[in-house]
């Protein structure tokens, strides 16, 4: 019997057009994922890792298909009024339910399996980079299908089936599936899933909870593979063990339990709808009848009234329904937990103030995600509701125009988005109030508007597609496809702002300038609204199937005019003002530049020795102009015949002049000026180059936010003309280089700041009258002229040619310490961390001057820059720029958290020595000198201020950052001393190794060496290298190994047992296992003294001392005075340990 039901169910589903649609959809999605090269760049597109991740992500989408198959499996009897027939047959309940479920689940899972076919086919497409293709094997595909997809789809299917069957309401099952997504979402943010925006890699003690909690197992997958290197990701299959295994068992068990619950709660009979059935009233022949003809009324055209009445009905049905109310409550819970976890989970676990901007970073992504999911579901239900109920003829015979129906449905979807948005914003506002942060209602509402508008536009698309589609379940995948094209348009060649639906330009926010790019946003919204309006008219014309409705000419004509007008304005801004290019065109431009100008790298070029310039900033319209002159000097040994001057490509009206020039040729495409000299510039000789470069307002499509209304920030290498070949134009990505026929890049690491020129600087900066402009050097004069304010800055001695200019309405704090003027420039109101920043600067200046040699400037300015800049802090000679949200708005009050403000300021101040005094020669290890020594200095300061525990916490984060960073390596991982652009080496590994060296040979020995290094190799025109640094440091085999090799330790505390001694002290016996290994190489002999630590219940160190350890098992016995609660090997992270979680354990 049950076999028959399954077979029937299977046949029923597989013969529906929706089955074909689902098969095609999954095959297509699988194909697109692989065909577009989904996955990290350094691993194969058909690696087990990529396959598992793709299958996991696609299984997220399977919920939509399950809504079609499983939710429907029982409810459809009701929709088709078949209940009576089915329930009176001889089928038993359990058989019926299991049969229906199994049949529909098999159909859904079969459809899903086609995603693998799509992925496989895509792998054989000709356009892939051969480097990203591994050997093809079916095993990882089938394994992923089995261990990831099958349990995922099974549980989701049971959930939807259960909700739909028990409530007999399809919407309730949709709500349940949204709940499923929310669970996934919470788990993802707990594990810092790489799939989530704004996730920072970091250790998290809740990772295991999330790994089990995530019903799609993606969190468990990421947890298991977090530290896998590229080679492992390319070959290893996911292992069915640990938390991943637990996760699978939990959710399969949940699925089985769910089916049991359905069997218990499902009443196998026709539901008595709403208690009493109205009884037929026996009517007396004459009685009850008022009059033969009904009351006479007048009929008027009142579509507005009809629209309002219809909207009321829609809202009553969809928004005031139990599923939606439950969803809204779930949503509020999700968003509150998201906000709270984000606020306490900033970089390295810092807390953040609940600013409007911060809150919307938490709200925006989930709102967008849940919003579109609901739109996909609800648009299908809404548009098809009357047809499903067989009610459309009643309504369509009325004179109400089609617009009444279409618009009331769109309004309801809009209201639904509105409710979600308002609930999200409300949760945010409550957090602001509760946390005692000033409620910023205006900004919150503006953010709500900017986030909700694209959803409202998408709702139009969904309604139009469903209206034109032949079936609800055909419309659903089309809506999904439209969504994906909209979100990933650039993968489909849709890049231009006029091509990508609802691609409103991105809004930037900073307390300094408020909202930026709003003009562009409003124009895009008008443009897309006109298109949405026209699409709505199409839906309106087609609403009554079989009966066309004539739409007057006025509205379409008006919309078309709006469309053309706004389109023209956007086009003008994008293509005329901004000279818009596609990503591909830009890459080609870069490649062509490199091919044409690369030869200049080998020709002698002069060096800039001094810059005198006027910089005119116009915050009111975003334009700026640089005029002035360079003194060029030939420091080579050959005469120079030609000088190549590069001006940024978007500058216009540039003038380049040189008195000794015979000819100046301009290459318009690349904005290069080739100057042929009258007579060659002899070695040691000077000449002067004059320039006048103008950057006009680039229109609203520009993402350029350098000069803004308040909070302008201009980096020198972004604006000033440069001499010779411009390395920053080179494409970095090796695959892209190969595609464009370029050889290996020889660009220096960090080409922007790899400048090794030292210059005298004399800048006159002008800005708006009420703003302060900052530049390097001593402030000579500050005056007003022609309604603008001028500042002249001049350096006392040469500085590295890396500087920035800022301008804003700053508040200022000034102090003097040890002859150095400390100046803090910040946005009024952003003074919560002012004292801390000043103290950190002061401490660091004092301590590092003592340790490494004197600070080279008479002043140190710390200047706030708006949140959109992609750095936490940026050091230039004598001036440090600190990010608004990543410095000024960190909530540093909690003493138990890592003091990131102090650490960051100390770091940037330390760069005054490492980078701006010692300027490394470009080449391997340059970044190690600049950054690792800065990291070391930063940790010294952190330890002085907050003690060793703070260092431990900081290094814990560094270790994690290194271990996960190295998984993204595209080449072989170089040793620290030869680090190039690998930020996972020079920051985190550098910090650990440098501090381990301090632990090994003592702070004094390290500092003395560094002091010598600064004295001997610091200052202009010396180009120290890692060899120099290593020669300065004392010799030690471990230093040599850590710096020049890639070794990984694995230390584990296997047991720790305490025994109380007669004298009241405690003896702790421990077993420590230790190994050391070269990456993917043989084990290395280990004979090192490593810290063993005992800690009290309150985490106070009771005992820390070095014990000699050898590879293999070690027995260690320690006697401590107080009762230890916790023991650990290498508690202060002096070794690169693959797994530091097993380094400590509770003492038994």
């Amino acid at each position, binding site marked *: 019997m049950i076999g028959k039901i399954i077979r029937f169910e299977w046949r029923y589903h597989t013969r529906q057009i929706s089955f074909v649609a689902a098969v095609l959809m999954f095959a297509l999605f699988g194909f697109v994922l692989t065909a577009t090269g989904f996955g990290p760049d350094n691993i194969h597109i058909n690696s087990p890792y990529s396959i598992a991740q793709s299958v996991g992500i696609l299984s997220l989408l399977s919920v939509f298909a399950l809504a079609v198959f499983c939710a429907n499996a029982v409810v459809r009897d009701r929709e088709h009024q078949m209940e009576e027939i089915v329930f009176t047959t001889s089928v038993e309940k359990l058989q019926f339910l299991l049969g229906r479920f199994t049949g529909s689940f098999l159909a859904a899972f079969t459809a899903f399996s086609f995603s693998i076919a799509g992925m496989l086919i895509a792998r054989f497409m000709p356009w892939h980079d051969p480097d990203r293709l591994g050997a093809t094997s079916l095993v990882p595909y089938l394994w992923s299908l089995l261990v990831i997809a099958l349990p995922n789809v099974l549980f989701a299917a049971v959930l939807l089936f259960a909700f739909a069957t028990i409530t007999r309401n399809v919407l309730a099952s949709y709500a349940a599936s949204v709940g499923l997504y929310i669970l996934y979402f919470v788990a993802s943010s707990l594990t810092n899933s790489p799939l989530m925006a704004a996730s920072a890699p970091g250790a998290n003690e809740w990772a295991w909870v999330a790994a089990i909690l995530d019903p799609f197992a993606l969190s468990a997958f990421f947890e298991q593979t977090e530290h896998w290197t590229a080679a492992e990701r390319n070959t290893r299959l996911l292992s069915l063990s640990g938390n991943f295994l637990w996760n699978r068992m939990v959710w399969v068990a949940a699925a089985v339990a769910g089916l049991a619950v359905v069997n218990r709660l499902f009443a196998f009979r026709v539901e008595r709808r*709403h208690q009493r059935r109205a009884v037929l*009233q026996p009517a007396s022949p004459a009685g009850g009848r008022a*009059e033969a003809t009904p*009351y006479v*009324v007048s009929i008027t055209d009142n579509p507005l009234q*009809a629209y309002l009445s219809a909207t009321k009905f829609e809202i009553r049905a969809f928004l005031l329904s139990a599923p939606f109310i439950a969803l809204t409550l779930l949503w509020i819970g999700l968003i509150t937990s998201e906000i709270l976890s984000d606020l306490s989970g900033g970089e390295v676990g810092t807390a953040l103030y609940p600013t409007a901007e911060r809150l919307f970073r938490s709200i925006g992504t989930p709102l967008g995600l849940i919003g579109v999911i609901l739109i996909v579901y609800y648009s299908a239900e809404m548009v098809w509701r009357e047809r499903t*109920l067989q009610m459309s003829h*009643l309504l369509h*015979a009325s004179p109400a125009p089609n617009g009444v129906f279409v618009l009331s449905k769109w309004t309801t979807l809009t209201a639904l988005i509105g409710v979600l948005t308002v609930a999200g914003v409300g949760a945010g506002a409550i957090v602001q109030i509760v946390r005692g942060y000033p409620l910023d209602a205006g900004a919150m509402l503006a953010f709500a508007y900017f986030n909700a508008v694209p959803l409202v536009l998408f709702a139009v698309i969904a309604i139009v597609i469903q209206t034109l589609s032949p079936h609800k379940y055909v419309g659903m995948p089309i809506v999904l496809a439209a969504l994906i094209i909209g979100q990933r348009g650039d993968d489909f060649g849709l890049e231009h702002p006029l091509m990508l639906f609802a691609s409103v330009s991105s809004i930037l926010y900073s307390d300094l300038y408020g909202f930026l790019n709003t003009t562009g946003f409003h124009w895009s919204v008008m443009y897309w609204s006109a298109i949405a309006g026209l699409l709505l008219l199409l839906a309106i014309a087609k609403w009554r199937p079989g009966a066309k409705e004539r739409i007057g000419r006025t509205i379409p004509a008006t919309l078309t005019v709006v469309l053309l007008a706004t389109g023209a304005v956007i086009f003008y801004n994008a293509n005329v003002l901004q000279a818009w290019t596609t990503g591909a065109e830009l890459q080609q431009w870069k490649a062509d530049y490199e091919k044409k100008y690369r030869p200049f790298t080998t020709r002698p070029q002069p060096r800039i020795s001094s810059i005198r310039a006027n910089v005119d900033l116009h915050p009111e319209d975003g334009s700026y102009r640089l005029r002035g002159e360079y003194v060029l000097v030939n420091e080579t040994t050959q005469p120079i015949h030609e000088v190549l001057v590069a001006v940024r490509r978007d500058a216009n009206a540039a003038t380049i002049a040189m008195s000794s020039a015979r000819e100046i040729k301009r290459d318009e495409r690349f904005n290069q000026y080739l100057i042929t000299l009258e007579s060659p510039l002899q070695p040691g000789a000077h000449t002067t180059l004059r320039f006048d470069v103008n950057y006009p307002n680039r229109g609203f499509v520009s993402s350029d936010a350098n000069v803004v209304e308040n909070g302008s920030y201009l980096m020198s290498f972004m604006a000033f003309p440069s001499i010779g070949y411009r390395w920053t134009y080179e494409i970095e990505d090796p695959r892209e280089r190969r595609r464009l026929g370029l050889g290996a890049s020889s660009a220096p690491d960090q080409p922007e700041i790899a400048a090794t020129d030292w210059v005298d600087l004399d800048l006159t900066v002008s800005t708006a009258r009420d703003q302060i402009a900052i530049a390097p050097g001593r402030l000579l004069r500050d005056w007003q002229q022609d309604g603008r304010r001028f500042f002249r800055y001049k350096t006392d001695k040469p500085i590295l040619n890396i500087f920035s200019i800022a301008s804003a309405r700053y508040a200022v704090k000034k102090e003097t310490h040890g002859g150095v003027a400390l100046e803090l420039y910040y946005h009024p109101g952003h003074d919560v961390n002012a004292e801390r920043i000043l103290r950190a600067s002061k401490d660091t200046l004092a301590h590092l001057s003592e340790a490494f040699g004197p600070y080279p400037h008479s002043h140190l300015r710390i200047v706030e820059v708006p949140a959109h800049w992609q750095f936490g802090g940026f050091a230039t000679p004598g001036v440090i720029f600190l990010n608004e949200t990543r410095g000024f708005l960190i909530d540093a009050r909690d003493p138990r958290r890592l003091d990131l403000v102090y650490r960051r300021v100390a770091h940037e101040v330390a760069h005054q020595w490492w980078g701006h005094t010692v300027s490394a020669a470009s080449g391997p290890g340059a970044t190690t000198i600049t950054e690792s020594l800065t990291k070391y200095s930063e940790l010294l300061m952190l330890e002085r201020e907050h003690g060793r525990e703070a260092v431990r916490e900081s290094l814990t984060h560094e270790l994690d950052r290194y271990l996960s960073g190295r998984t993204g390596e595209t080449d072989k991982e170089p040793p620290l001393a030869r680090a190039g652009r690998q930020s996972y080496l020079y920051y985190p590994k550098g910090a650990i190794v440098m501090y381990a060296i301090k632990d090994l040979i003592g702070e004094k020995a390290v500092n003395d060496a560094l002091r010598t290094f600064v004295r001997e190799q610091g200052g202009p025109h010396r180009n120290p290298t890692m060899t120099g640094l290593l020669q300065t440091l004392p010799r030690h085999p471990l230093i040599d190994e850590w710096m020049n090799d890639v070794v990984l330790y694995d230390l584990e505390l296997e047991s720790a047992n305490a025994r109380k001694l007669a004298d009241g002290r405690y003896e702790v016996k421990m077993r420590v296992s230790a190994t050391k290994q070269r990456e993917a190489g043989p084990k290395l002999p280990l004979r090192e003294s490593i810290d063993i630590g005992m800690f009290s219940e309150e985490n106070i160190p009771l005992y820390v001392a070095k014990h000699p350890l050898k590879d293999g098992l070690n027995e260690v016995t320690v006697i401590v005075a107080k009762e230890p609660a916790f023991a650990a090997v290498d508690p202060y992270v002096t070794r690169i340990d693959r797994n530091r979680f097993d380094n400590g354990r509770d003492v038994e």
Partner: protein
Amino acid sequence: MLSIAHLSKTYPNGVRAIHDVTLQIDKGLFGLLGPNGAGKSSLMRTIATLQEPDEGSIVFNGRDVLADPRGLRKQLGYLPQDFGVYPRIPAIDLLDHLAVLKGVSDKRQRLAQVESLLQLTNLYDVRKRAVSTFSGGMKQRFGIAQALLGNPALIIVDEPTAGLDPEERNRFHDLLSEIGENVVVILSTHIVDDVSDLCTRMAVLANGRVLLQGKPSELISQLDGRVWRKTVRKDAVAQYRETHTVLSSRLFAGETRIHVLADERPEEGFERVASDLEDVYFSVLARGRA
């Protein structure tokens, strides 16, 4: 007055639902009789502007319906053959909403009409109950109530008595005939008695074509004296069908009675009976098949 001329409609799947239909329909009840699948509902839906014909014209009171469907919808009351309603919505609320859609804008007028219709259809006492919980008859009465909203000049009711018990059906007929005094009412049915009880004019539709139209009484009188009846054995019916024009065969008290159309007495045992509308209907269908 409704005139339909040369109306044709073929569905995308190739089914020719209406074929060159021409009808003149005056005030009063007009019966559209035909077997299941004859195209009645298609014709009704086309007149009700729910679908567009491929060819032909529909003119109501001098106005072109196809050119201005909304003009007709303002005067239309339509009761589809089978309809559902929004769940959990009380009858009075749903009627109010439908009245608004019909264009009854004035709130007082609307309320008055909704209440009067609820009384008229004897649903006043259950007005606050959800229509989705109504029994078949009550739902049908609700259907008639909504069709009468806005005082329509053209009322189309499609198979309205299907599923009603005899008492309900009678009450329904009373209601229809009273309303039909002043407006055009088109009643589609496959039950001959519905037409003979109610309609002043009628048409027979089969395979999308109009086979016959006129006043029921006149149509009946055309068959006067030509209908013969005989009680026969059940297994003989097939034989009679081959040799005679058998209009109908039905069981009567356990025996089979056949009606045969003939100018003379066909054979021994046949007795002449007074013709009725059913004979007309079957004779037309028989001719249509021939």
